């Protein structure tokens, strides 16, 4: 997770988690149901009773629909079934954060464009352009490291599920789409031959 640029604090037990939560505020809690010192559900129930509304995504080995319903009823925002794909988790995290919205979300600017992560909209010269799915994800990755070169493999790892086999020019397709969306602004995606891509501005 930290590879993606998130700040992560890891607690190995409910007790530790309590300590962390007491010390700082978090944007999101990833909760494993089976913990060495107790059932995650009890923690979740207690968390909600204490009126803490930090979003929680539960990780569980149970995939039964009844469990999902129960977890959501207890107060989880979403859940992933183990084993899960990182990108799926990432997608769900983004969805939960987007839903929760609020002050945490601020507009981002780069060069002469503004990007609203909440609505996934790029504003270029006053024109709003919507980014969808993978092209949105690609832009977010590139935007997280401006002028940083991302290799094709790195991009593939982040855009596609680890299990998917990807065609050679799959990245080119999305880069192409994104370039079209960036037209008219000084921001552009530069192909670094043999190395990768980077977001830069001219």
């Amino acid at each position, binding site marked *: 997770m930290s590879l993606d640029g998130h700040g992560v604090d890891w607690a190995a037990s409910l007790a530790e988690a309590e300590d962390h939560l007491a010390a700082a505020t978090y944007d999101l809690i990833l909760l494993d149901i089976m913990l060495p010192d107790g059932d995650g559900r009890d923690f979740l129930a207690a968390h909600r009773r204490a009126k803490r509304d930090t979003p929680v995504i539960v990780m569980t080995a149970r*995939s*039964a629909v009844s469990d999902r319903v129960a977890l959501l009823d207890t107060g989880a925002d979403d859940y992933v079934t*183990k*084993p899960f794909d990182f990108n799926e988790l990432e997608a769900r995290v983004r969805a939960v954060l987007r839903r929760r919205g609020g002050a945490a979300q601020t507009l981002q600017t780069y060069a002469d464009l503004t990007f609203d992560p909440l609505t996934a909209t790029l504003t270029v010269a006053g024109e709003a352009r919507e980014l969808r*799915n993978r092209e949105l994800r690609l832009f977010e990755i590139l935007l997280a490291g401006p002028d940083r070169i991302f290799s094709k493999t790195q991009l593939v790892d982040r855009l596609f599920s*680890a299990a998917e086999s990807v065609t050679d020019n799959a990245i080119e397709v999305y880069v192409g789409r994104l370039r079209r969306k960036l037209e008219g602004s000084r921001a552009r995606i530069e192909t670094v031959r043999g190395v990768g891509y980077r977001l830069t501005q001219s």
Partner: protein
Amino acid sequence: MVIQLLLVAAILSALLYLSVRSVAFSAVETTQDRILGAATLAIAEELRGGAEGVSVDIPYAAFSMLGAIGEDRVFYRILIAGETVTGYDDLPLPENPPEGLDPTFYSVAYQGEKVRVSAAYRSVLVARKPTEVLVLVAQTRSVQAEIVARLANQAAALGLGFFAVAALLSIATGRSVLQPVQRLAEAVGRRGPNDLRPVARPVPEELGPLVAALNGFMMRLSGALSRTETFIAEAAHHIRTPLTSLRMQAEIALRQTEDEEVRKTLRAMIRSVDDSARSAGQLLDHAAVIYRTDQRSEETIDLWPLVEGLVDSFRPLAEMRDVELHTIAPPEGMTLVADRVLLESAIRNLVDNAIKYSFADGLVEVGLHREGQMAHIWVHDRGRGLSGVRASELMVRFQRGSNVEDVIGSGLGLTIVREVAAAAGGNFKLGEREGGGTCADLYLPLSD
């Protein structure tokens, strides 16, 4: 059970009749024999030996007493030294002459009727020489037959009365015994499918063991069921936990290397892990569905919000695969009575399949509308389609299409949907979509 009791009562009554008849017969015969014997002895005792011969004096009472029981014909024969001196000289002699002083009895036919003969033997001294005297007294037994018949008929009437009373009692008993059992059965039958509480209603003493056994059974059953549920959960956990760490390690390794060969291997590994996890998941799902189709807990469900909620939960996944999820709401609300968990299982399977088999940039449409008394939920995609394989084959357990080898699935998904549709009393259709893709249509009976 009542029939059996009546049968037993009937047999007992018949036995009563027969035994009374037989007892009456021997009682009357014994009595008559006694009187007959007494008459014979009365004559025998009056025999006197004199110088000239044996004098026979038949006392009036000897014959008069024979009229005591009824109007039977009387015959007699007295033989002195083997010669008949008086009486009916063709009255049959006994086969075995009596020994000792007591009379013997035998039955013969005489003058067209069955008679009972009593024979007594005496030795009388005539001029100092012992002379044998045989006294036979016989009587018809028509009266005996009459008495026996009368007693037997009375017994028959008694038996019939007894039978009637026994029959009434049997029916009353049967009813009073069966009634609490029936009430108990009704009470248990009225319970919901998940109600395994012990039976607490008061029951008659005799049903105590039954109720205790029933409660014991229910306890074991609910224990077994909860153990099954626990097992399913534990199995899920035990399979997935090691798979999880394996996958995580692989994914981390994938992100840390640029070597294409290594990456290909790692990807293959991850796909295997996902395959196992998915198989396990679907097996457990299937088991859970089977369990629930037997033990449905039904509730009234507002259909569209449920469908929409499910679709929403798939959006992150769809996003990841660059697939558009589109929903088409019905013009009016619809409710049905069904098991929520089963229903969600089925719809999730359909949506999951549609997303899985779609191409990038694909569109999956989910809609709901009313058709007569049925709710029609449809999931259409523009994905790989069924490529000629018949839908019915796909719905057989573990059967997968020929065009989906690189997509992870265990082949149970559609089977689950079909079973859920059947359990709800609805229908499921799967077919090729015109222009490419698949149409999955689920029909469920509405409650309004």
